[in-house]
């Protein structure tokens, strides 16, 4: 019964977009409700002479960015969760704030900072080195910027599992004579392997699908990946309509990859006992003392924060104070103005969009957290039949491009009409985000659930507790920090999401990012920077609040 109920919810959320994707890939025009069937879209997508080159570029880009994101996040999570480096709370927040920066503005910021012609950093270094040091319009530049932008996501996945590690495992390793490196590689890393795998899979697929950075930095210099090809098919076809058929055919590749990785992940985590670290015994995570090295490590953290946050944020703030973008010079100081910011709060459209954005973010985050939490509990903690199907259903939306989710939702809610009259309202955007972010919610929660020993729940049942009571009184408090993390992650991403919101835009359901895009696309990039700054302020406040709440509710010992 519970499987059926959850399965029905997931089917409602996932099957329509999946069906739209598959049917669209087989229609000659790509529109699911048009007539005819064909395999021609697959032939055009994969038989294209450019396809192998696109795929090769995409693999290099995605694998490179994933390696940058996961390795950096792992190092940061280790330092911030397991060492006594000073300023951990502040650094933790600053590692997460880049989630709030819309990727489009991040790319624009790096273009202004690092373009080979008159980028700020290159100009400053010109007296000391020949030629520009930085060039974001290269594959290396794209990999680094995309990788850095995804570090917060990887950090949110990896950090909780490091925090929940029982130190007795490491102590046992040290007792047997293992040094620090051996302890880490032979004990710690295997214990957090599910989290590393989750981070790797999510980020790898995201790099295949995301467009902002390849579009803003790759397209100008003709470095194309699959997502820029999707952009072309959606926008530049002379037929006057998006080529949904080819887009869907390409997306099937992502789907196959995702299902393969999901199968590998389930095999890896099948023996969940191997990853248990939270038991009935209380513990404190082992904190490694850095001694005099702690200031050097703090300095490196500071360098990371400078590159990943302060530089792009600084240039965005600079742009937001200008009438048009220009590099910081003595002359351009005279152009500084607060007009972009003042104008925002005088705009009914902006104020209305803030309300819409907050409503969408809060509702989507809450629903994803609840459903994702239930999915992860069922998949990880239960022996209910059909949980593999549930797991796959929850994971599939990761591979469906946001625009195709939008296409499906348009048809579904037009068909439902007055029965579910949400077309053109903010609620259709909530529905889109619920589908889009469910995989993240289920996986983030699932990783932490893997670490909880079932003896705790068994003790509860032995004492006469019903399954619901055991879940609420025992399991939930332990995984609550992770669920809060899910909520914050989904809310932050909902606030900055663009492609689905644009697809589902109606007369009066604008959100902040659609206004930001309006300004950018309409030639007012400094106004879009101002909108971005306020978006970052709002999201950062949310992250700060979350960190404060986490400190109050985090439990390192179970009752």
């Amino acid at each position, binding site marked *: 019964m519970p499987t059926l109920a959850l399965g029905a919810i997931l089917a409602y959320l996932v099957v329509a977009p999946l069906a739209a994707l598959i049917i669209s890939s087989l229609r000659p025009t790509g*529109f699911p409700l048009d007539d005819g069937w064909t395999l021609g879209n697959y032939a055009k997508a994969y038989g294209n002479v450019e396809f192998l080159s696109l795929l090769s570029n995409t693999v290099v880009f995605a694998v490179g960015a994933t390696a940058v994101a996961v390795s950096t996040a792992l190092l940061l999570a280790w330092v911030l969760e397991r060492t006594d480096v000073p300023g951990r709370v502040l650094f933790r927040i600053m590692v997460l704030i880049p989630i709030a920066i819309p990727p489009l503005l991040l790319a624009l910021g790096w273009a202004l900072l690092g373009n080979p012609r008159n980028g700020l950093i290159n100009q400053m270094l010109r007296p000391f080195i020949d030629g520009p040091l930085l060039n974001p319009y290269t594959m290396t530049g794209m990999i680094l910027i995309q990788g850095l932008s995804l570090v917060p996501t990887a950090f949110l996945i990896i950090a909780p599992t490091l925090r929940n590690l029982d130190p007795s495992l490491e102590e046992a390793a040290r007792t047997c004579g293992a040094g620090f490196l051996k302890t880490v590689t032979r004990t710690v890393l295997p214990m957090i392997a599910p989290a590393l795998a989750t981070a790797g899979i999510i980020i790898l697929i995201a790099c295949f699908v995301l467009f902002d950075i390849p579009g803003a930095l790759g397209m100008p210099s003709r470095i194309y990946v699959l997502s820029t090809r999707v952009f072309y098919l959606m926008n530049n076809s002379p037929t*006057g309509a998006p080529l949904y058929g080819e887009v869907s055919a390409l997306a099937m590749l992502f789907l196959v990859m995702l299902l393969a990785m999901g199968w590998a992940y389930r095999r890896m985590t099948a023996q969940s006992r191997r990853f248990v670290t939270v038991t009935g015994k209380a513990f404190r995570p082992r904190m490694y003392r850095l001694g005099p090295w702690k200031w050097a490590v703090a300095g490196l953290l500071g360098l990371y924060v400078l590159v990943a946050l302060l530089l792009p944020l600084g240039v965005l703030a600079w742009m937001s104070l200008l009438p*048009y973008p*220009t*590099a910081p010079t003595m002359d351009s100081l005279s152009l500084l103005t607060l007009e972009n910011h003042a104008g925002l709060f005088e705009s009914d459209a902006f104020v209305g969009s803030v309300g819409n954005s907050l409503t969408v973010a809060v509702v989507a985050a809450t629903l994803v957290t609840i459903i994702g939490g239930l999915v992860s509990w069922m998949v990880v903690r239960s022996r209910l039949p059909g949980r593999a199907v549930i797991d796959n259903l929850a994971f599939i939306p990761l591979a469906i491009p946001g625009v195709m989710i939008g296409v499906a939702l348009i048809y579904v809610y037009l068909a439902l009409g007055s029965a579910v009259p949400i077309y053109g309202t903010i609620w259709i955007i909530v529905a889109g985000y619920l589908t889009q972010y469910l995989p993240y919610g289920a996986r983030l929660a699932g990783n932490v659930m893997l670490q909880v020993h079932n003896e705790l729940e068994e003790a509860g049942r032995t004492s006469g507790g019903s399954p619901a009571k055991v879940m609420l009184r025992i399991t939930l408090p332990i995984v609550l920090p992770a669920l809060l993390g899910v909520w914050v992650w989904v809310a932050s991403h909902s606030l900055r999401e663009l492609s689905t919101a644009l697809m589902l*835009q109606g007369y009066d359901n604008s959100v902040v990012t659609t206004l930001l895009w309006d300004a950018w696309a309409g030639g007012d990039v400094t106004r879009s920077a101002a909108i971005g700054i306020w978006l970052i302020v709002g999201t950062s406040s949310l992250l700060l609040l979350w960190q404060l709440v986490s400190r109050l509710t985090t439990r390192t010992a179970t009752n």
Partner: protein
Amino acid sequence: MSMKSFMTYAVTVAALSSMAMGTMATASTARADSLADLAKKAAAAGPILWYESSPTEEMKPLIKKFQERFPGVELQHVRDTGGNAMAARIIQETQGGGRTADVASNGPPILMQLAKRDMLMNVDWSALGVAKEMAPEPYAVSIAASAYVIIYNNKAVKEAEAPKTFEALLDPRWKGRIGLWNRSESETSLSAVWGEEKTTAYIEKLKQQNPMLFPSSFPMVQSMASGELAVGWGAAHATLPTVRKGGPISLVIPNPIPVTTIYTFIPKGGKNPDGGKLFAAWLTTTEGALAYEGATGRGNLRVPETNYGKMAAGKEVAEIPLSRYDEYARIYEAYNALLAK
């Protein structure tokens, strides 16, 4: 075009909104009567939903003017995200049985996609006083155009040095400093005058200049204003937001001028087709054309009172007509692929 002339253009466009506020419609009595009848029906049918690709905030003066002209009629603007999204939206809404636009404005690809699907209403435009040259097909009227011009950063490039022709963009001094739109609408239109072979050869040489490609002319102009680029080829109206704010951007009107006509059309699935027809017909009047140019910077070449009408005087306008749309589509796709390589 000299800096002074360009500033005159920019200021004139900015002032066109106020001009439109005081300009009376030049419709004949018969036209005025037919539009008045249409307005009564439109007012009774509820708000007119208009899909168009400009920011909604910028359309407010135009909407105000229209609603003052036809009291009781309400116009609602929904911004389209550009590219081919508008056609997709109208198709999906029509197929899904939901509310779609009563009137929409866009270029030839979107127009022809919807026309081929028989999703557009045929209208007797002449009965509404629309001149024949503005209604090439019964399902659309031409209301404006995007004109593609040479753009340059006037701090980095002196007026005397600025390229005055497309050929001048091939000067080696511009190598690595040129911006282009990644969609080849302008090059395709240019081929209507130059011929396909000459244009293809030109694009091959232009690519040797290592141009930077942008998803639209607007971000290209912003990059130019920041000093990252020196010169570019893009839509004239994309320069206005930056120029209005004092950005160091100037433009040169080349000869021939490649253009893409913007059409307005009535989807069959709309709930207020009379409102759609009313608005479309009004946009072809001098008052409507001035209001649209004031709001978007894109004027109607066939209305001499508009800035675009004046800009086109004495120049050859390059565009493949709607009647040869298949040829346009073939060349457009070929040039997109050529630019991308």
